[in-house]
Structures are given as structure tokens and as C-alpha cells.
């Protein structure tokens, strides 16, 4: 059978896919190339026109060699047991692929391929690997179902042939017994199972409790996670790779005032709380000012208009509740009325209304004076820099020592001057020196990289990732550089906080606007240089940052890379980063959505009922009457549905398809009793075969001395008279027929 013969090809494809998958997951190109080619060749070598298989002894020797090789591999890479195991299973799979294969061998091979994919899932959450997993799941499902049939057929055939006694020459049939359109039905079943499986697995995925029991078996380490775009929290250990997604997030045009110096640092979130272990978040204690916009007017946040202001007009492409602005926003306007939260101390704005915010304008003051800043802060005092410094009081002493060394090397005092007037100037100079230290990658050995999947950060809490970055790994991206600068500053008493946002540096002359992409997400540091003023310092090496620029100098591959990056960004944002918070938000949104929809529907129904009541002057009792009418309509609809369903069954059972008009409706009215009789018989296990004429069926029951045979015979005669005899059964006859059916039901009960 062709369908079953296609299984070995499919099984080879699935196995090849699993080898590709593990190659992608372990990022082992050599394994992918060598083993992939060997796996692809195995089909031709073993099943081709001159198909030859490995002898068993050779296979055993090879397995032994693979095991020894795996032991040596394990000794060299004892910290990466899973990768070693994956390589060993790949070789096992290859050896088995070159052997002669029985259904049992195919079962083992499919099991090995599943193990490979599971190990891959332990090692990677990359989009590419996820795509391989998805294709593997679909193809594997079809292969698995086909394998069930293939194996059962082979076993059935083998058992039937083996049971033939010696000397008996006539062979029984070994062809599989099958109905019509087997392949179509199997594919339909696979599609149904795949769709329902995907739906069920997605629901289960969303419902599994997160953030419970992580690392309870020890050795907990986040897999290679990828992150992209702007975040309102920084976790130096959680995201080990920043993807350079070229997806555009915002378009920004500048008007008024003088052009600021590029890159424009668009502030999104200010992170002044260091939680330890490389995690930064925003302080929750800042008092928020609720702002209600009235388009198209600018809503002033505090202070007065100043000649040094510029206006930033943003077009939002990817929705985010944070409104971005260069330092410092003084007025805001949105395309439609919205509610915003403005934090006067950090000068950040957040949109609190649901729904899309498509565009907004922000007027910013590039050099605000203290008066303006005081007005923006409202009733709150200046930001408490000492509180930030206090968080680093017990930080690793080496960091403070390193900061002092750097300051001393630049001829700066390593402590704050006693004179209060000089403190502020010293802070700015010292912060600039420390930022310069970090930016001088040629001399200090720091390396900028967005891919840290090969870097081991100790996650057991024994050493802070900032300390590891400064003294051990010396490799990281902007968040590491900014965190290091903030730590260096705070450890010598300079209040410094982390700011995340975008570095706008790609100006598109055709649009006349800056294009801000996810790859432009950035983190830098703000240092308090007066009670009210904070100055930005960017410790990230500018040359490295420019290399990531998605400007016109991109290569051909880069021009197409955005396609992959867009998917990867969605994958990282929607799937990999799905955690307990996102789960709670999703549940809340679903719950709210349903509640809103149900509430809206109920309100609309009430309004409609009230309108009807008013229109017909029913008065207070009108609702009762409408309820009765509604109930009657529902009952009528149910009755109509049942009647239509019964008519369809009658049409199918009595072969009334060719009848039209009055004759058809007469048959529907008159032959109901026979359908009832058939149902009674079916319920009692005496179903009439479709091929058997009613008379023959009645005779067959009589021949079997069935207790209901005589009643069936009488009903059948009446059926023939009405269906083929052209007789119109009278009302009494129909009543009598129905009574006979009831009698039959009682007799067969």
C-alpha cells in the first residue's frame, strides 16, 4: 500500500529534522553539517537501488566507539552534560539509520529523535530552534500516526506468515484491510489532531503556574534567552542576548529650537532602585501627577514656555504605555483625549488609558533651570540622591577601590570635597572620568557584545553580575556598562541612576523624521549634579554603538535581516518572556474583556427592550409580555430546529431526495412512525443495515424469531403502503402505527 510505503521516507525526514534541531540548539555548525549530510545520505545508502545496511557487529562496534567518545567528551565538557548527551544520541541515531530497520527499530529511532528535541529545548529557546520544533511537531505527528499503521501492518503480516505450519504451501492474504480513501482520512485526522493539539497545548501553556519552583532541582540557569527593545526593568542575568531587531517602533520629528546633539537619548524609564544580582527597577515611591490631555492643545506639566524648548512629534508604530522624550518634558499633547501619569521627580510619562495611542507631541526643555524643575516636581522635594547611594553602601569594596583608582589616575580627588559648593562640580567631573574609563575599551579590556550566551554569569548570588562584569568577564552590552558606571559612581558617593530608552540616531530624510527601531534601545546613567538637576552620562563605547546602527550603510544580508528580527522580537517578547506577570495581565485582560462584552451586550439588550416597550406603550407589564414572547420564540426556534433535523433524518433514511413539493412533505408527515421504529430497533441493538430493504429486514427478524418481529412486519407493511403504494394513511392509521411503535419499544425493553 502506497501510504504505508511512504513511512520510511517520512521517518528519515523526521530524524534529519531532529538532528538539524539539536545542531541549531547547541549552535554546533560542524555537528549540523556532518551529521545532517550523513543522515540525508543514509536513505540512499540503505534504501536506494543498491541498498546495503551495516552488519550488526559493525553497528555494535560503532556504538561502543560512540560511547567511548562520549565519555571523553564528557570529561572535557563536564559542565555541559546535555550537549554531550545530545551529540551521543545523534551518533546513535546515525548508526541506527545505517542499519536494517524493523518496526521496533523505527520506534526506537522516533524515540531518539524526540529525546534530541527535548534536549534541544533544554538548551535553547531561540526562534530558529522553535521553528524547527514546530515543523518537527507537525511532521512528527503525521509520521507517528503513519508509524502506528506501518508497525501494526508489519506485525500482523509477520505473525500471519509465521503462524503457517511447515509444509503448508498456500499463503493467506497479508494485505491490510482498509476502507476507501485511507490517505485522505489519515491526513484529515492529522490536521484535526494538530489543530486541537495546538489549541490545547497553547491553553495549557498559558495556564501553567510560572515563577513557582524555579531551580528547585539545583543548577537552575536560564536558557539562552533573547530580548529586544525597550524594557522598564533591567536584569543582567535574565537576558543573555540582545537581538538587533530592526523593527521600527517610533517615528520622531523635531521642530523649534536648535537641534540637539546626536544621538538623542529618549528617556523612557528611570531605574533608581538596585535590587541586587544585577536587577534594576523604578522606585515606587515617586508621587505621580495625573494629566488629562485635550487635543490638539499642549498640556503644560509645570513651569512656563521657554525659548530653549523643542517639540518632538512621535508617531507610534509599536504600542507601549511609556511616552518618550529627551530631557526634560514640559508639555504634552496626544491625538485624542487621554489620561497620563507624569512623574515630576524623574520626568517620565506613562499612558494609563487602554487602547491605542497613535501619536503624541512633547515639548522638552534641553537646559531647564532649577525653577522649571521645581515646578515640574510639584509638591515633592528634589530626588533623594543619598537614598540611591545608600543602596551601594555594602557593595563589593573592590568597586569603590577601582573607582578611586580611576579618579586618582585622572588627577581627581577620590572623595567628595568638603566644600559643599564644590561637591556638585566634582560629581560631574568624576562621573565623566568614570564613564571615560569604561568607554576606553582599547585600554581597559572591556568588550561590547550583545550576545552573551557563551558567558557564564554566576547566578547563585555569591557575586554580583556588575562585579563579575568589572573584574572577570569584562564583556557586556549597554546595560552592563551603564550598571557598572552607576555602581562605580554610587560607591564613591555620587548618586547615579539608570535610565532606559532609545538612542535615536537614524534620520530618514525621505520621511523627514528619526526612525527609532528596537535595536536602538539603550541604557545610560544620570548623575545628580545639583539638588534638582541630573546629567546624562553614557559609558557605552560610541564606536560599538554606532556599529549596531541600522542606517543606510547596512549590508545586503542586513537589509533582509529585519524580517527574521521582527519574528524573533515577537517570539522573544511574546513567548520567551512570558512570565507570571504577563500571565496575570493576560488573565486580567481576558476577564475584563469578557466582562465588558457581556456587560455591553446586557446594556444593549436592556436599552432595546426599553425602546420597544416605549414604542408600543406596554407600560410596566410590557416586560412580562416581552418575556413570554421571547420564551415562545426560543421554544419555537428549538422546535423548528428539531423538526428540521428529523426531516433530514427522514430524508436520508427513506431516500426521499428525489421527491419534490407536496409529495415530499406528505411523506415527511406520514413516514415518521417508521423512523421511530428504526430508532427503537437501533437502540435495542437491532439496527437495520442500510443495504437491506425494509421487507427483507422484517423477514430476517422473523427468521431469527425476534420478539419484535411481528410488530416490525406490521409497521413495514404500513410503510410500504404509504411510501410505494401511493396510499394516504388516515389519522387513525397513523395513531395506530405510533401505538405499534410504543408497543415495540415496550417489547424490546
Amino acid at each position: 500500500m502506497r501510504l504505508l510505503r511512504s513511512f520510511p521516507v517520512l521517518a528519515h525526514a523526521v530524524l534529519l529534522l531532529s538532528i538539524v534541531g539539536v545542531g541549531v540548539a547547541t549552535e554546533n555548525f560542524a555537528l549540523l553539517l556532518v551529521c545532517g549530510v550523513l543522515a540525508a545520505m543514509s536513505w540512499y545508502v540503505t534504501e536506494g537501488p543498491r541498498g546495503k545496511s551495516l552488519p550488526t557487529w559493525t553497528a555494535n562496534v560503532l556504538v561502543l566507539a560512540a560511547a567511548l567518545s562520549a565519555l571523553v567528551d564528557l570529561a572535557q565538557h563536564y559542565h555541559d552534560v546535555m550537549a554531550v548527551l545530545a551529540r551521543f544520541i545523534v551518533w546513535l541515531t546515525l548508526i541506527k539509520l545505517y542499519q536494517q530497520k524493523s518496526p521496533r527499530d523505527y520506534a526506537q529511532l522516533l524515540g531518539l529523535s524526540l529525546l534530541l528535541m527535548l534536549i534541544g529545548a533544554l538548551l535553547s529557546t531561540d526562534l530558529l530552534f522553535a521553528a524547527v520544533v514546530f515543523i518537527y511537531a507537525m511532521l512528527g505527528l503525521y509520521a507517528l500516526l503513519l508509524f502506528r499503521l506501518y508497525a501494526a501492518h508489519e506485525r500482523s503480516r509477520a505473525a500471519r506468515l509465521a503462524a503457517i505450519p511447515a509444509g503448508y504451501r498456500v499463503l493467506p492474504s497479508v494485505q491490510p484491510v482498509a476502507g476507501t480513501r485511507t490517505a485522505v482520512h489519515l491526513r484529515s485526522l492529522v490536521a484535526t489532531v494538530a489543530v486541537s493539539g495546538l489549541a490545547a497545548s497553547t491553553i495549557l501553556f498559558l495556564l501553567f503556574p510560572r515563577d513557582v519552583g524555579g531551580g528547585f532541582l539545583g543548577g537552575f540557569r536560564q536558557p539562552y534567552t533573547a530580548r529586544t527593545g525597550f524594557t522598564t526593568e533591567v536584569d543582567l542575568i535574565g537576558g543573555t542576548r540582545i537581538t538587533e531587531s530592526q523593527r521600527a517602533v517610533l517615528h520622531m520629528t523635531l521642530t523649534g529650537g536648535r537641534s540637539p546633539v546626536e544621538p538623542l537619548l529618549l528617556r523612557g524609564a528611570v531605574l533608581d532602585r538596585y535590587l541586587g544580582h544585577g536587577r534594576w527597577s523604578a522606585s515606587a515611591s515617586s508621587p505621580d501627577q495625573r494629566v488629562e490631555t485635550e487635543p490638539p492643545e499642549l498640556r503644560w506639566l509645570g513651569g512656563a514656555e521657554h525659548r530653549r524648548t523643542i517639540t518632538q512629534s512621535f508617531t507610534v508604530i509599536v504600542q507601549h504605555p511609556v511616552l518618550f522624550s529627551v530631557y526634560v518634558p514640559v508639555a504634552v499633547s496626544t491625538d485624542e483625549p487621554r489620561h497620563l501619569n507624569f512623574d515630576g521627580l524623574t520626568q517620565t510619562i506613562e499612558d494609563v488609558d487602554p487602547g491605542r495611542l497613535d501619536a503624541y507631541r512633547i515639548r522638552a526643555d534641553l537646559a531647564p533651570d532649577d525653577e522649571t524643575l521645581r515646578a515640574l516636581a510639584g509638591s515633592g522635594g528634589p530626588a533623594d540622591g543619598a537614598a540611591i547611594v545608600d543602596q551601594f553602601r555594602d557593595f563589593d569594596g573592590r568597586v569603590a577601590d577601582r573607582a578611586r583608582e580611576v579618579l586618582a589616575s585622572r588627577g581627581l580627588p577620590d572623595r567628595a570635597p568638603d566644600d559643599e559648593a564644590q561637591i556638585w562640580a566634582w560629581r560631574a567631573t568624576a562621573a565623566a572620568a568614570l564613564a571615560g574609563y569604561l568607554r576606553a575599551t582599547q585600554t581597559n579590556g572591556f568588550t561590547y557584545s550583545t550576545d552573551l550566551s557563551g558567558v557564564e554569569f554566576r547566578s547563585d548570588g555569591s557575586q554580583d553580575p556588575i562585579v563579575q562584569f568589572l573584574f572577570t568577564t569584562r564583556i557586556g552590552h549597554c546595560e552592563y556598562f551603564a550598571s557598572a558606571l552607576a555602581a562605580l559612581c554610587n560607591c564613591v558617593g555620587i548618586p547615579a541612576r539608570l535610565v532606559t530608552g532609545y538612542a535615536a540616531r537614524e534620520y530618514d530624510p525621505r520621511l523627514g523624521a528619526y526612525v527609532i527601531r528596537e535595536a536602538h534601545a539603550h541604557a545610560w546613567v544620570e548623575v545628580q549634579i545639583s539638588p534638582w538637576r541630573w546629567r546624562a552620562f553614557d559609558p557605552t563605547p560610541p564606536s560599538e554603538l554606532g556599529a549596531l546602527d541600522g542606517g543606510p550603510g547596512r549590508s545586503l544580508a542586513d537589509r533582509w535581516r529585519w524580517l527574521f528580527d521582527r519574528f524573533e522580537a515577537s517570539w522573544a517578547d511574546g513567548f520567551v518572556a512570558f512570565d507570571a506577570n504577563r500571565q496575570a495581565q493576560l488573565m486580567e485582560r481576558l476577564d475584563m474583556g469578557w466582562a465588558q462584552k457581556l456587560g455591553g451586550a446586557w446594556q444593549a439588550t436592556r436599552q432595546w427592550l426599553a425602546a420597544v416597550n416605549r414604542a408600543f406603550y406596554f407600560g410596566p407589564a410590557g416586560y412580562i409580555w416581552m418575556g413570554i414572547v421571547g420564551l415562545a420564540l426560543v421554544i419555537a426556534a428549538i422546535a423548528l430546529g428539531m423538526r428540521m433535523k428529523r426531516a433530514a433524518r427522514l430524508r436520508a433514511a427513506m431516500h426521499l431526495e428525489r421527491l419534490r413539493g407536496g409529495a415530499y412533505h406528505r411523506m415527511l408527515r406520514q413516514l415518521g412512525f417508521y423512523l421511530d421504529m428504526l430508532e427503537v430497533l437501533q437502540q435495542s441493538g437491532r439496527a437495520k443495515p442500510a443495504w437491506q430493504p425494509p421487507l427483507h429486514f422484517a423477514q430476517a427478524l422473523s427468521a431469527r424469531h425476534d420478539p419484535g418481529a411481528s410488530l416490525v412486519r406490521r409497521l413495514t407493511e404500513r410503510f410500504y403502503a404509504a411510501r410505494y403504494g401511493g396510499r394516504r394513511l388516515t389519522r387513525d392509521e397513523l395513531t395506530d402505527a405510533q401505538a405499534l411503535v410504543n408497543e415495540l419499544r415496550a417489547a424490546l425493553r
Partner: protein
Amino acid sequence: VRQTRVRRYHLHLPGILYVVLTLLVGLAAVNRQNNLLFWILGVMLAGLLISGLVSGVMMQSLRVRRLVTGNGLVGEPLTVRYEVTNRSRLFPAFDIHLEELPAPGRGDWPRFMSPARAWVMHLGPRETVHGDAVFWPRRRGEIRFDRLRIWTTFPFGIIKKSITIAQPQHTLIYPPMYELRRDVLSDIAPQGLSGAKISPYTGAGDDYYGMREFRPGDQLRQIAWKRTACLDQLVCVERTRPTPPRLRVVVNLTTPTDRLAVADDPEHAEARRLEERAISLAASIVHVAELDGFEVGLSLPGTPAAMLLIRRGHWHRAKIMAALAAIDLDAPRAPLGPPPSTHGERAGQVVIHPHRVEPEIGREDALHLTAGQLGNLAVRAIGWDPDQAPAEAPPRGAVA
């Protein structure tokens, strides 16, 4: 017949392994907080759920009926056919296995034949197919089919779902038969193969019997034209009815098995084997005689079975074979009674003894054979030779 259905779910080894693997993936997912592992865990749990649902829906709509089969014969395959109907309008059924379960208390069922399965690969919605299981009977007797089990592990092989249906039915396995030497019948039948030509009844033979008046329905060629001309009325010629040679086969089972004086046989296994071979020889003689046009009758002295008259035809042969198949050698034997009325019938008689000839059984002119002579008389077994297969062990490679 209303089917009594017992539905069961069995968790077998692959299913247990799957559950263990799912648990391990769950542990890994929780430990690593890896969303891809969470999704794979979801897929595996969904697989478990869907496996139960698909197979449940599939099995629920299946109807199975064992079709009435002919009787079997030791040495020939016994094919039992099953009518499998899928009553579902939407869902097809795949990978359906059917197997027979012996009746409770009939533990000796496997002694008759090895278990066999029927397998139906696919059954579309509203379709009916016929699957068959090929059994290889090893010994004669009555086999009672009792319950029928249909099961599947489709789609994923995780859970085995079965439905057991009670469908009592029985069939007979005829004794093993052999092709005998061509001259055996000429030795047995005193009248030779041509038989008696004259009988007191008219028929369609060649010899003249008499004349009678023409009756409507007579053929023109039957009219005796000369006589008709003389008598001036239509007269027909009547012919004799040809009588085939007749044979009565007597199987002497008057002596109980344990009293057959077989040397070195304390367990009476050899004695029982001789009795079986005697029955086999009788069946072979009946078979050969039928083929050569004999009318055959059967007597089984020592057993309660009624004597079968000398007749011929398919049904009569089936009756004789059924009588031979149904002999219960463990039942008490009846002593030898007065000579039966068959002593006077005009037919050849062959008496088959298990061990030693007892001349008082059968007529004086009867031919006496013993079970031991089967080896000399038989040319080859019909089908496979059960004597070459182990007595109790299943045939080579049978499905356990």
C-alpha cells in the same frame, strides 16, 4: 443480537513510559522556567488528552459481528471473518485489532489452536469492512467462541482501549484427514466401484425398468413411439435408478482408552493417540469414499452418538464429520450390545479399531483396519500434517 459491551482503558508499557517522560519534562520546565519546555509539556499533555478522546470516539462508534463460519479441519486454516462497521458520520477509525477471548472455564481453548488476530487498518465513516483471523487448528473437537475483544492503541500508542463483546458461537474442527491409496476402496467395497445397478425405484439411469402412460412434464425422448403407435396413446419408457456403491464405516470405541493394551504407555498418551488416528482414518475413508461417489454411513459403537444412515451429499458428509469431530473420548464407553440392524444392509463395511482387531464388532465380511495401518494407507495429509507439529505447543512463530 444485542451486544453486551464492556469498555476498558489499559495503561501499558509505552503509555507508562510516556507519562514518566511527561513528568520529567514537567520537572525540567518548572526547574528551568523555560517556556519552550512549558509548551512541549503542554503538547505532551494535550497528546495524552487527545489520545483518549480520539480513540474513545473511534471505539464508541464501532460495531463488530463475527460472521458464521464453516467448520474447520485439522491441517487446514480456519478463517474467522468479522464484519466491522463504523457508525460515526465524521470520524474514521484506524488500527483496529480483533481477537477472541476463550470462555471462562474453558482453559483448554488454546489447545485447539493458537490465538490469532484480525487487523483492520482503516475504516471510513459509515463504512463496513470484513477482517479475518486465520487460526490453525491442532486437534479435532468443538470450539466455543465466547467473547470478542476489539482494541486499539491508536493514535499515539499511549493508552490501550478495548471493548469486549459477548458473542457466543461454536464451531467444529474435523479430525485430520489423509489422502488414501487408490486401492483402499476396492478392498473395502464388495460390489466394486460400479455398485449395484438395479434398484426397485425408477430413476434417470440407463437400464430399462418398465412402461407407463405419458404424464404432463415427461420429455419427448422418453416416449416409446412404437408402443404408442400400437396402443394409440402416448406411452413412456421408465428407466432404473442407478445405485452408487455403499459403505458403512464403523469406528470401534467400545474399549476405554485406559484398557487399550498398549505397551509402555502408563499415561495412556499413546492409546489416546491411536484412538485419534482411528477417528482420523475413518474421516479419511469417508472423505475418499465421498469423492468416489460412495454412499457412506457411520457407526460409533461405544459412544452415545446415533448411527448415521448410508446417504451421500454435502450435508450428509458434514453430519458424519461433525459426529467424528464431536466424539468425546473422555466420556464413559458403552459396552458392546447386540448386533445392530446394519448387519443386514447391502453395503460394504469397514471396521476401524484403535489398537487391536476385535472381530465381534461388525459383520463377518467386514474389513477390519487398525489405527496403526493409517501410515500404510495414507499417501499424504490433507493440508499440513499435525503429526509433524508438536502436540501442545503452538505452531512455529504463532502469536502469543
